[in-house]
């Protein structure tokens, strides 16, 4: 067990004991664990054997790393100095060029089978993966070198998990997520654009404490963070049930904070804890500030969740608008067509009947 002094010594480098314990308690709360495990977490987090982490960047915008830099529970300094040993991270490391490549090589050979590999960004596979190269090696080659030696892989962000915007139709570079290439390593997907850094931190702490990944759903996402629908925990849900909707951005309903369903909120089909965990430590999240959810934690969201301001997808088929408009056009044509066919059919029937009556009267006349 640890002592007060021990923690103070440990946390001497800029993080107070209070902050540190708070960080662990928040990680436990995010994971949905009881406060009893906090000491165990503190112990795991203080262990001198900080797990080495290799952070790979492929086709991405560094938004996930940016989001992580803004984490405050615990902050990035605590994370990379106290919780993990961040051996390779292209944005944060001091090394560059050949030295950086060496660091990566050393990290994966020295810690083979022990390190956590974090993958940020999609991996292009078309034309042997030439669309993303670092130090003369393709993303596929780098992942192929690093991933088999990792203890576990965390795919951070929708790109790493499912391919993201690169994989949107027509997917010119053949981008895929980590799980499409690596099959024999445990993979934890933390999707989102960007994901909430607390979900990432909580996953890391879970692996540290228990030595195994958290429970995952069918898409490989931790259930503690992605097990519930945004819609079911949304503060605007009563307005949905009540039938009070924002019709247009800036209208009186919008000002009153009504439900954003009609302006395209994807909360009803999106799994994430955004509505509960919120962002940036000041309790904000998209719906809270009046913008609908865009469904960024779901696979293929660029294809299935767009247009962002319509609640059904806009897979663009031959010409014209989104699929809902197209479907409605088809629907209108079908219903109109059905009505027209019915009318024409009825008219022909009636016409024919009238004609045959006339004929039969004529026949009768002839018979007379």
């Amino acid at each position, binding site marked *: 067990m640890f002592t007060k002094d021990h923690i103070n010594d440990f946390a001497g480098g800029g993080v107070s004991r209070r902050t540190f314990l708070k960080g662990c308690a928040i990680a436990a709360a995010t994971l949905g664990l009881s406060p009893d495990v906090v000491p165990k977490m503190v112990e795991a987090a203080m262990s001198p054997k900080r797990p080495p982490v290799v952070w790979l960047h492929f086709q991405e915008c560094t938004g996930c790393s940016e989001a992580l830099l803004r984490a405050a529970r615990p902050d990035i300094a605590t994370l990379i100095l106290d919780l993990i040993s961040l051996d390779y991270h292209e944005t944060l490391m001091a090394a560059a060029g050949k030295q950086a490549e060496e660091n990566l090589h050393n990290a994966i050979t020295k810690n083979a089978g022990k390190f956590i590999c974090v993958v940020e960004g999609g991996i292009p596979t078309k034309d042997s993966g030439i669309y993303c190269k670092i130090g003369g090696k393709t993303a596929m080659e780098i992942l192929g070198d690093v991933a088999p030696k990792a203890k576990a892989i965390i795919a951070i962000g929708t790109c790493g998990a499912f391919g993201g915007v690169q994989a949107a139709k027509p997917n010119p570079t053949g981008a895929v997520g980590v799980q499409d290439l690596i099959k024999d390593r445990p993979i934890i997907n933390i999707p989102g654009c960007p994901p909430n850094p607390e979900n990432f931190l909580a996953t890391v702490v879970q692996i540290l404490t228990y030595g195994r990944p958290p429970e995952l*759903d*069918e*898409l490989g996402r931790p259930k503690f963070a992605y*097990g*519930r*629908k945004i819609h079911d925990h949304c503060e605007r849900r009563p307005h*949905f*049930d*009540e*039938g*009070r*909707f924002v*019709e247009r951005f800036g209208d*009186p*309903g919008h000002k*009153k904070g009504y439900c954003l*369903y*009609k302006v395209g909120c*994807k909360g*009803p*089909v*999106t799994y994430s804890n955004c509505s509960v965990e919120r962002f940036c430590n000041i309790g904000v999240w998209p719906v809270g500030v009046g913008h609908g959810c865009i*469904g960024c934690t*779901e*696979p*293929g969201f660029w294809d*299935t*969740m767009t247009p962002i301001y319509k609640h*059904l*997808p806009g897979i663009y088929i031959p010409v014209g608008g989104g*699929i*809902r408009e197209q*479907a409605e056009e*088809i*629907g209108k044509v*079908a*219903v109109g067509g*059905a*009505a027209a066919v*019915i009318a024409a*059919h*009825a008219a*022909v*029937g009636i016409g*024919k009947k009238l004609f*045959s009556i006339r004929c*039969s009267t004529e026949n009768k006349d002839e018979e007379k």
Partner: protein
Amino acid sequence: MIRKEPRLYYRVFVWSGTLRLFHWTLAFSTFILILTGIYIHYPPITTKWAEFKPLYIMATLRYWHFAAGYFFICALAVRFYLFFAGNQYERPTDFLPINKRNLKSLVYNIKFYLYLTDEHECRMGHTILAGTIYFVLFICGVVMGLTGLYLLYPETPTIAKIGHELFGTPQQARLIHYLLNWFFIFFILVHLYIAIWNDFNAPDAIISGAFSGSKMMPADLECPVEELEKIPFEK
């Protein structure tokens, strides 16, 4: 006149009580599902901007939608059972174009509906054209039921797994659920029209048959399709 009226008719019992129960359950549940579904898809403005007494309209209509959905699924289950255990007219072998006789009949149906022939095929069960479309409707109903269950219980492990395999994310299931809705609207329009049209043009009295389960068959059955069963009226 073209038809030899008046004629002598048998009243023949065709549709079992179970089948009629299925028919009307499906009809009423589909009706409610379409109306509530359209509201859920695009809720019109029902509440003034000013806060006033609670309506709870979306929640209520969703409640009706789910309740009707259960009746819909149960009705389909009954129909599925009747595919195997129903009387001879209720089994797919009788109304799907899977043999020579049925194919011949199908061509004849289409001609009749296009006014290319005046002689109505007096047929005991479904006509082949109707039967085929009902079968397609059944399949669409199953897809509606599955996507509906997936959307209602996306977090139940088994349903989530099956739903994910079949349809992808709930968002994709929602799109399928919405698009098929149009097929049901289209079907109802045509079905009602054809039923009424048939009542004018054919002697079977199929609308009354939907309640009574019987059809009127001419005693001097003269049908172009041979081998048509002449089953005496028994009840």
